[in-house]
């Protein structure tokens, strides 16, 4: 009798569990995330990770950045700078666009949304702070003003930087609920009933979406699978259609029939943040910092750690970025002999000791790069003493504590004025905790920002980057792709993405006809 009771409860359990299963039909796209999004609120979301996938699904930006890097009209039908100093952008709004709740997207709603995000103080604060305000010009025109010349102001209004994601008036009034529900005008809308926060987010097509051509799926399910192997297994067995992957798994995924694509824009290495020698006197000497740059065998690390998806680089720029130039990326060839002699020249023939705010979490192979670099630095006499924070928050706090000469670098390519703001302006950031800056570099960047001509502007950015690289403020090793796997049924997945794309925009994918 007792056994029967057990069996019955087991059956009951089975029924509940079965109810939670996700069906994987043609109309559903299932994407995998390795980290749970901390919030669904665009004003508080992190920039640049696939983690933003859920937000991209639900929020329509003013301007959409295509996966190839081009800027495409979205809620904004068009945009242009007013005047020639890149400070004022006039945006004309598309008519008839509605939020998922059916209310219209008005100029007032757009202005309120931009101003809300600007002031929210989220992780995106440094980019958002470049915008000083938005105001309604007429019912179909909004003017966005920057605090200083910002030549890439339109890019800030894309889904990549979130500032242009328009939140409905209801959403702005919703307070904390903004973090767990969606209030956008995007192609999909969150189905809270089929959502387990931190695990599964189910989105259904937004019936009011303005551009039916962009709604390739009826449903998009976002599953959080933190274990990389589990994620890959889920893809191999057909439970997930699209997800980020690991370099080590790329060949195995390829042979299992998954498409492997790389988004090429991350730098792995160290920031040499203590340029005045506060934590370790030798770091104040440019020759020591240069010696460290000569000590790194970038090609070997790229090959061993990123397996064909990484390129050696001496500078923080990628092909296609505004500051790119081949020369600066090859500024420091691998030359341990030169590294030693530079150290000796600087007065440290027996080597130097430096501290590192190291990387502990599983973040873009950071632990391997870090170990390889520590080993190579040790060979020329730079003894690195790492400490590790348990999570990104601790890691950030540690670097801001100004106790570390080096800070681990996992940083994506951005337009150069943004990179300059967070890396080399007076601003205190985890990448520049001492708030260092070089006045002539700052002046050069300011001048470039206000230059209308693109080629001329990019030349100036490259010169500024070259100076920072010559001063050896950074110790990058590899410019690497992040890897994404997709199943054959997902179409329109580009082989290469645009330079500033840090994570694919899944709303641009299509359902591959006849596949599966």
């Amino acid at each position, binding site marked *: 009798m007792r056994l029967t009771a057990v069996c019955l409860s087991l059956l009951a359990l089975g029924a509940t569990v079965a109810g939670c299963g996700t069906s994987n039909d043609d109309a559903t796209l299932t994407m995998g995330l390795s980290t749970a999004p901390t919030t669904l609120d665009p004003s508080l979301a992190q920039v640049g990770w696939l983690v933003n996938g859920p937000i991209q699904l639900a929020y329509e930006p003013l301007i959409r950045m295509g996966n190839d890097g081009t800027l495409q009209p979205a809620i904004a039908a068009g945009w242009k700078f007013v005047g020639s100093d890149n400070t004022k952008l006039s945006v004309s709004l598309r008519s008839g666009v509605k939020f998922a709740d059916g209310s219209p997207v008005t100029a007032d709603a757009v202005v309120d949304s931009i101003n809300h995000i600007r002031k929210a103080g989220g992780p995106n604060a440094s980019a958002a702070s470049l915008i000083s305000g938005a105001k309604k010009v007429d019912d179909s025109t909004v003017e966005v003003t920057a605090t200083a010349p910002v030549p890439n102001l339109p890019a800030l209004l894309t889904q990549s930087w979130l500032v242009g994601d328009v939140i409905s008036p209801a959403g702005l009034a919703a307070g*904390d609920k903004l973090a767990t529900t969606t209030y956008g005008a995007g192609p999909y809308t969150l189905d809270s009933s089929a959502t387990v926060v931190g695990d599964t987010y189910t989105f259904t097509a937004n019936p009011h979406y303005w551009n039916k051509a962009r709604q390739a799926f009826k449903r998009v399910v976002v599953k959080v699978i933190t274990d990389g192997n589990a994620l890959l297994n889920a893809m191999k067995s057909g439970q997930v259609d699209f997800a980020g992957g690991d370099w080590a798994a790329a060949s195995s995924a390829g042979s299992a029939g998954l498409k492997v694509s790389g988004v090429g824009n991350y730098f792995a290495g160290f920031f040499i943040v203590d340029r005045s020698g506060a934590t370790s006197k030798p770091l104040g000497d440019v020759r020591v910092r240069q010696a460290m740059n000569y000590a790194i065998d970038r090609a070997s690390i790229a090959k061993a750690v990123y397996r064909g998806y990484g390129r050696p680089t001496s500078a923080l720029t990628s092909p296609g970025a505004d500051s790119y130039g081949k020369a600066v990326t090859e500024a420091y060839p691998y030359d341990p002999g030169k590294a030693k002699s530079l150290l000796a020249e600087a007065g440290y023939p027996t080597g130097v000791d430096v501290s590192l705010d190291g990387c502990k979490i599983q973040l873009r192979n950071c632990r391997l790069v870090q170990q390889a670099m520590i080993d190579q630095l040790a060979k020329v006499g730079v003894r690195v003493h790492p400490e590790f924070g348990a999570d990104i928050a601790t890691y950030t706090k540690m670097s801001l504590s100004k106790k570390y000469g080096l800070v681990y670098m996992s940083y994506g390519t951005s337009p150069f004025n943004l990179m300059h703001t967070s890396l080399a302006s007076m601003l205190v950031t985890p990448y520049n905790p001492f708030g260092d800056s070089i006045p002539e570099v700052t002046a050069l960047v300011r001048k470039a920002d206000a230059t209308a001509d693109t080629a001329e502007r990019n030349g100036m950015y490259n010169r500024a980057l070259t100076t920072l690289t010559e001063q050896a403020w950074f110790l990058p090793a590899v410019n690497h792709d992040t890897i994404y796997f997709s199943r054959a049924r997902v179409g329109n997945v580009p082989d290469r993405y645009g330079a500033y794309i840090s994570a694919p925009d899944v709303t641009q994918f299509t359902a591959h006809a006849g596949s599966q």
Partner: protein
Amino acid sequence: MRRVIVKRLAFAVPLTLLASFLSFVLVALSPGDPAVTILGEGATPEQYAALRSQLGLDRPLVIQYGDWLWHVLQGDLGRSIITKEPVLSGILGRATPTMSVIVGTTIVSALIGVAMGIHSGVHGGVSGRVVDMLSLVGFAVPHYWVGPALVVVFALGMPLLPATGYTLAGLVLPVATLAISGAAAIAKQTRDSMRATMQGEYVRALRARGLPERRIVYRHALRNASVPVVTVVGLLVVQLLSGTVIVESIFAIPGLGGLAVASTQQHDLPMIQGVVFAFTMVVVVVNLGVDLLYLVLNPRARVA
């Protein structure tokens, strides 16, 4: 029976309080900052400070704990600092998968373990040795080893079962992974107590009354041998609460173990408190269940 329930429940109150207070203090004293988790790496120190004060994290610990407790007493477990999700729904959403894994593992482990234990305890000899050996291997082989191996064989090699996810079929592999060691522990205990019970005088007397051996083993000896086995099963359930972390990770099951790890790393105090609360409740309920089972199984415990 009522005495036992009242005693256990009375015990549960201070236990819950102390457990929640200890975990609150421990986590609060550890480094890490939800403000940084929320704002990311790019905010200014002033912004962090403002958020911390908005979240009430700048108040003295005792006040923070008292505030939490006050709300709990009113039935409000609060919201996650990070995701803003209500703690209660977060816990409930995660508890179902974890509890299904635990319940499944417990049932499978108990069935297999008891069967193996009976066999070894009653028959001994070579088969007993084999059971001993199997249970040792089950104990020694790490979950992170068995889990992936099972996935490779049953999910990728011959796609019988899903590799990940929380579905009925998806529970098979995680439960199998955990049940290997669970069954091992139960088999060991069952064998030992069956062996002792089968030497009991009443077993000899039952045999002398001509009762079938099966009846003696399953109706009489097993029931008397089951008290220590129930204890081990109870301990297994409690250990599985934390023990599922690895399996949840391997099979991508959204469970309490993963929630405990994530919320600890994010310093999400309300959520951690919720997890600890849930754990404590499970411990209390399991202990109560074990006590009640004792009463059912052992008439001598009933009067006293």
